[in-house]
């Protein structure tokens, strides 16, 4: 009797994952009640995560590993590949980039020209940088410096800026803040050529500035304009992996449902499994395509 009960229990467990031949139904985990439960669990999870963000600051958030030194190195690597002279890091341009990034957070916009009509050049002129040529590249929500420069190189207009021979100097700002209600990392790259060549930054000045950045980086954690944010758990990555995992699991169960039902001749009066598979595949693709991080402007 004990063996029979154990056997029945085993059969019952199996039908959480496989269709039921006698009852002609899908696996228990594909029942509509199960989907409502998954949705509820996900909503609860979202609620807990959002509560934890305020309860445990510095643990959950948007983590990126982008810094000025790497951005400068990768930019100059791309220029050397194209036989262009390297750009020198200029403190005034970096400050202008930082002011621009902060202004974007303050006014909640993501564009070269602000909604109130302020152009990038104003930030450069505010730093008393008198230029004959100037340019700006923007990026948001990338994780690594290399990804940022690669994205600029992939975009023809940004590539033109990055490899232009009209510029001698460059400035960067990496600023974390909240844009459209989301924690965001903005990268601003500003190019320039001073009107007076005597004002060109020297390699010595650049080294001095880079050293000051390293020192500031060592003493600053989140919300800086120089480098990475250091959350223990990166929420976008966590959410993306979680979404992929659950969609993949459900998708696998539906594929198994088709295979097992065909093999055992189980005719079920349900919705179309193939249609469910299509929407799940589309959801996975859309998370990969639309919900990816990193945009340039």
């Amino acid at each position, binding site marked *: 009797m004990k063996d029979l009960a154990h056997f029945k229990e085993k059969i019952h467990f199996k039908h959480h994952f496989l269709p039921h031949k006698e009852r002609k139904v899908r696996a228990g985990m594909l029942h509509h009640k199960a989907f409502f439960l998954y949705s509820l669990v*996900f909503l609860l999870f979202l609620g807990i995560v959002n509560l934890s963000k305020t309860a445990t600051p510095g643990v959950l958030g948007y983590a990126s590993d982008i810094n000025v030194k790497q951005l400068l190195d990768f930019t100059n690597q791309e220029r050397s590949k194209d036989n262009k002279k390297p750009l020198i890091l200029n403190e005034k341009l970096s400050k202008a980039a930082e002011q621009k990034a902060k202004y974007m957070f303050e006014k909640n916009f993501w564009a070269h020209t602000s909604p109130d009509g302020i152009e990038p050049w104003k930030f450069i002129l505010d730093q008393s940088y008198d230029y004959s040529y100037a340019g700006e590249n923007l990026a948001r929500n990338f994780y690594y410096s290399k990804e940022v420069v690669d994205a600029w190189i992939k975009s023809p207009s940004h590539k033109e800026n990055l490899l232009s021979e009209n510029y001698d100097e460059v400035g960067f700002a990496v600023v974390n803040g909240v844009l459209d209600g989301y924690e965001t990392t903005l990268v601003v790259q500003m190019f320039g050529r001073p009107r007076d060549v005597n004002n060109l930054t020297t390699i010595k000045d650049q080294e001095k500035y880079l050293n000051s950045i390293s020192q500031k980086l060592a003493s600053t954690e989140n919300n800086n304009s120089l480098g990475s944010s250091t959350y223990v758990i990166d929420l976008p990555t966590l959410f993306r992996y979680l979404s992929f995992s659950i969609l993949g699991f459900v998708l696998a169960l539906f594929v198994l449902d088709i295979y097992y039902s065909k093999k055992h001749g189980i005719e079920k009066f349900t919705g179309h499994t193939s249609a469910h598979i299509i929407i799940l595949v589309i*959801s996975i693709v859309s*998370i990969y395509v639309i919900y990816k991080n990193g945009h340039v402007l």
Partner: protein
Amino acid sequence: MSFKKHLVEYIFIFMYFSFLIYFFNYLGNSNYARYIFAASLPTFYLLWAMAHHMFEERLKLHIFLEYLSISLFVFIILLTASNL
């Protein structure tokens, strides 16, 4: 409904969804575009399913709940992936 007719519908759905992905990827900088995509994908799916099953005369409560639950599930997953 024959397999061939189903296939035509599936191809149409797949192409429509692919267009949605392409379109919303074009608008990708905006978080609001992500919200709209998260809502439009399952809404269209649910509407298609209802129309399809009504046409087939097999729209029952449990089938409606099946599509509703999957649509809701997809909506919440996409919302989660929006970096909430």
